[in-house]
């Protein structure tokens, strides 16, 4: 059985994030916790159903990917261990990898900084990807 592109991407997201979207009980606590909720077009609790429905294309194009601060409030508070923050993070990685580079040198970063990227996201990323 061969997977469609969309299914493959969804599977990739599941693997990168380590998250099982089927565990979601649609309580909305992620969205309730999210400090960037109002900036987002796809809301945190919706990320999960996009993965369940293999709709990664839409997720990749959404503004939300770049609005998530990576504060992990949703990861901490998710009662079902679905951890939407990690799903967003994985989607972000997927998009970045498709653009080519998956690796940056520290000295290259300042030049690449986009004014729109929230600072906290950078700090959060450093925190997670050091080593």
């Amino acid at each position, binding site marked *: 059985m061969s997977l469609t592109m969309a299914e493959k991407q969804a599977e990739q997201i599941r693997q990168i994030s380590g998250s099982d979207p089927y*565990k979601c*009980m*649609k*309580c*909305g*606590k*992620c*969205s*309730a*916790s*999210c400090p960037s*909720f*109002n900036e987002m077009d796809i*809301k945190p*609790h919706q990320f999960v159903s996009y993965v369940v429905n293999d709709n990664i294309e839409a997720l990749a194009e959404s503004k939300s990917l770049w609005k998530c601060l990576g504060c992990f*409030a*949703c990861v*901490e*508070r*998710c*009662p*079902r*261990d679905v951890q939407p923050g990690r799903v967003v993070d994985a989607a972000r990685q997927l998009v970045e990898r498709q653009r080519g580079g998956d690796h940056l040198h520290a000295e290259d970063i300042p030049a690449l900084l986009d004014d729109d990227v929230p600072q906290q996201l950078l700090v959060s990323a450093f925190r997670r990807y050091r080593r």
Partner: protein
Amino acid sequence: MQRIGVFVCHCGTNIAATVDVKKVVELVRFEPGVVHAEDYPYMCSEVGQQKIAEAIKEKQLTGVVVCSCSPRMHEATFRNCAEKAGLNPYMVEVANIREHCSWIHKDMEEATKKAVILARAAIAKVNLNTPLQAGESPVVKRALVIGGGIAGIQTAIDIAEAGYKVDIVEKTPSIGGRMSQLDKTFPTLDCSSCILTPKMVEVSTHPNITIHTYSEVDKVSGFVGNFTVDIKKKARSVDLDKCTGCGVCQQKCPMKKVPNEFNRELNTRSAIYTPFAQAVPNVPVIDREHCLMFKTGKCGVCSKVCQAGAVDYEQQDEIITEKYGAIVVATGFDIIKLDKYDEYAYSQSPDVITSLELERIMNAAGPTNGHLERMSDHKPPKNMVFIQCVGSRCADHRGKSYCSKICCMYTAKHAMLIRDKYPDVNVTVFYIDVRTPGKNFDEFYRRAVEQYHVNYIKGQVGKVAPQPDGSLLVQGVDLIDNKQIVMNADMVVLAAAIEPNPDIRKIATMLTASIDTNNFLTEAHAKLRPVESPTAGIFLSGVTQGPKDIPETVSQAGAAAVKVIGLLAKDKLKTNPCTAKCDVMMCNGCSTCANVCPYGAITYEDQEVRGPGVREVRRVAQVNVALCQGCGACTGACPSGAMDLQGFSNRQLISEVDAICR
């Protein structure tokens, strides 16, 4: 050589759809000892059992193998059937070709092959079975109920009404349990103590009921029909017989700063106290941890003011030993600790409370005399937010995986009562699902919405932040509108998950009753034996078995009582004949087996042993069959193999291994 009959059940299509039963019948015919084999759609049915009985008689069967569902399901059925047909019931073995075969395999050839092997193992075992006779043990006509909440009270009353003696052991100074802390009850909104107090009085005055409050079960030994229990009666420091319950001691006690457990520590009590006004017995206890007399040796006020001379600082803990035929566990629940839910600011603000605290606040005998007010500044709230499923339905490390079942209903009750009494208070409920299965339950919830205009929002709260002005900022989500909501509240009420009483692990261990990963006691069968523990003689009442509301608890309490009555009504019980047995010719008398026996069933005695070329007095093991429960730990420990287990003997098990590995 045995004459074995093999009976293969189709179980409708449950077995026959995956296992070729005809083929099984054909193949087992050639097994050693088999003289008869047949199949039938439902072996457990009247007709099926008739077939077994007929074959036993016509073919003079000495052994029976039924290939059917799990022996845990129908072994007793088939053994009874054999016994009625004149065959020793222990000459029947069941090959489990449903749960362990047809239900888990899809390939017919493979499943059939496995079914034949399982049948072969059972046939090999039956070839070595010997008729066993069940012994008898007397039944002590007295029951013990652990826990004096509504579950324990109801069970005790029902058993007592049937004419049997019942003892209740309650850890706290009074019976009454959680229900005594509640203000009103859903869905009828009647006052909790108004319906509970008469029951408490009934139980305390019933001639067949003895109540041990401020007491704990310390040790349990024995078995169904004949348990011996040590009950530790903690020193109350007040003589139960002398005290008149006048309450002067509590008024005069100089130590009034003790957190009041009954009011969920929202206010304080004196060191000598009764938990609440309607307490049974209405006799205070001295909390020795806080009493000045016990801490400093200087005080003695209560003793001085007591007209009856009931205060006794010298009183000691006392252990009483009683015998019981049955034990009911009704240890109830508590709510979970909320220290892992910091986002709701429970530990930061006194105005974030649990629902059980709200019950006390709304109760006329509670810390605010029934006035709805904030615990921080005692002002009436304007906006109240209720948050559901705090710690329930959690897959993470913080909470419980189950639904606590009662929260949806009591939250609707709270919301309704508040809107009724304080119509200017806005009430918002954040919910994931509203679960209202139960008679008049959904109607009750709809009334909260339709009649009382309680604002139910589908969604959760992410954060509660105390503000400098004393209000609480609540950030939640409305999933229907797909909007984040940020609102101000004066009080936030958390529907915290319930969990079994933390003492239950210790108690279950003493009773050797199985317990699940959530600390609820396991039933003997989830559907068909819901009030019995798998451990014979142990029964379950109330939330100790799983989350339930009051009406469910009361019906289950009654059901447990019926099971107890059914047991106590018997004069004698048949004992399990599958006990250990020592071959004195082989026994070394080394005591290894006695060291591993959990029941103290093995003793040693000098006995004259006679056999081929042997006639001497030897120290050999003796098994007390009334105590032996048939675990077989001794058989594995015995170096010589002298100790064997009847019904699961070494030879039988080895022959099963051989049959499977053939």
